[in-house]
């Protein structure tokens, strides 16, 4: 199982950096990763459960990774989110894949 994990660094709302192991083989996304490591208070991230229908998992991508294009749903939700920057993404739409090893994210204060 070990070789299927990648490292993802998440900066929480207090500015603390956490580098965590993220499995690539269970269809996990960044929002779920944040929740599973309890990097934000329970009930504040992933409110819609990962449907791109709330912006509670918004994060800023700080590393230079080749991320999948935003879907229309994600674009539309980010247009109604707050504190949006050019590097904003919804964590629930970023699936943990081997090529995201070394990804660095910061949680957005929109919650």
């Amino acid at each position, binding site marked *: 199982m070990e070789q299927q994990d990648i490292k993802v660094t998440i900066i929480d709302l207090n500015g603390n950096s956490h580098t965590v192991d993220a499995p690539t083989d269970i269809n996990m996304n960044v929002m779920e990763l944040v929740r599973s490591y309890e990097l934000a208070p329970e009930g504040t991230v992933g409110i819609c459960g990962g449907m791109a229908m709330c912006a*509670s998992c918004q994060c800023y991508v700080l590393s230079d990774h080749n991320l999948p294009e935003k879907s229309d749903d994600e*674009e539309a939700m980010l247009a*109604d989110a*707050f504190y949006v920057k050019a590097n904003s993404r919804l964590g629930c739409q970023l699936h943990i894949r081997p090529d995201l090893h070394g990804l660095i994210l910061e949680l957005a204060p929109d919650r």
Partner: protein
Amino acid sequence: MIKTDILIIGAGPTGLFAVFEAGLLKLRCHLIDALPQPGGQCSEIYPKKPIYDIPAFPEVLAGDLVDNLMKQIEPFQPGFTLGERAETIEKLDDGTFVVTTHKGTKHHAPVVAIAGGLGSFEPRKPPVANLEDYEDHGVAYFIKDPEIYRDKKVIIAGGGDSALDWSIFLADVAEQVTLIHRRNEFRGALDSVEKVQELKSKGKIELITPAEVVALYGENKLEGVTIQQGPETFKKECDHFIPLFGLAPKLGPIADWGLEIEKNAIKVNNALDYQTNIPGIYAIGDVNTYPGKLKLILCGFHEATLMCQSAFQRIFPDKKYVMKYTTVGGIDGFDGSRKEAPKAVIKSID
């Protein structure tokens, strides 16, 4: 004062199903919800999305699930206090409770079941300085009485259905309606988008996109907003600014009811009956927590069922009760209706 047997706080799927299970035990229910319609998140956030893990439903839309639950509980005539948030709870000397909403509506019941999900839905407020200073002085997040906008200048912000729908509605009421959104595309229903387009070409709605409101001004009351569009900033006069950016749940006043809270959820005794640390107050569905908790609708249904059995014992400590299958016992509604399995026809062969 509204009186009932089980007062349910939260009219999502778990709260609604509790009405059914209580009804089988001849217990009446009343539900309070901050949203104007029943269904909780299923109605508010994802009514058109499918759910695949409701037992015996290979696929069901969240909105249809709510409609089915409403139909299922109809014989048990639940009461509803909608659009009001449960604010305070008081335990009376006889062990019963009075729950008062933020509008002052009082409810009296021997048992309270909190089925509040992630909390009560409250408007998401954009991060604009001084926004809260103008609340009730020109800034509102809900449209309660459209008449106050008659012949006024109104600015609406947002890109979803409520922003579109209210722009359309107010186009006939207000002197001027301006809709501001951060992008040119809107994610609301197609016919609403087309209607706004039509009203725009008739000059009844002014559309400013891609743009956002970045500041408010006015002495004592709102007089206008500052809009940023690309590199430019400009001011626009208005009487009302209505930011419509959806709702987000907050545990809210329930957090101060003296209940044991862990990770934004209410701790309950899951080995027995989902009762909280205060006897007579239960917590079921997404709002509770216990070792191994899963926030699933199907788990909420189970929790609601066990809660009702315990509530019955609490309300009628001396009554003997044996659980009956609905196939055997049928359903006797409080409305006088009766549903039962058809009797077998026995016929002899000569």
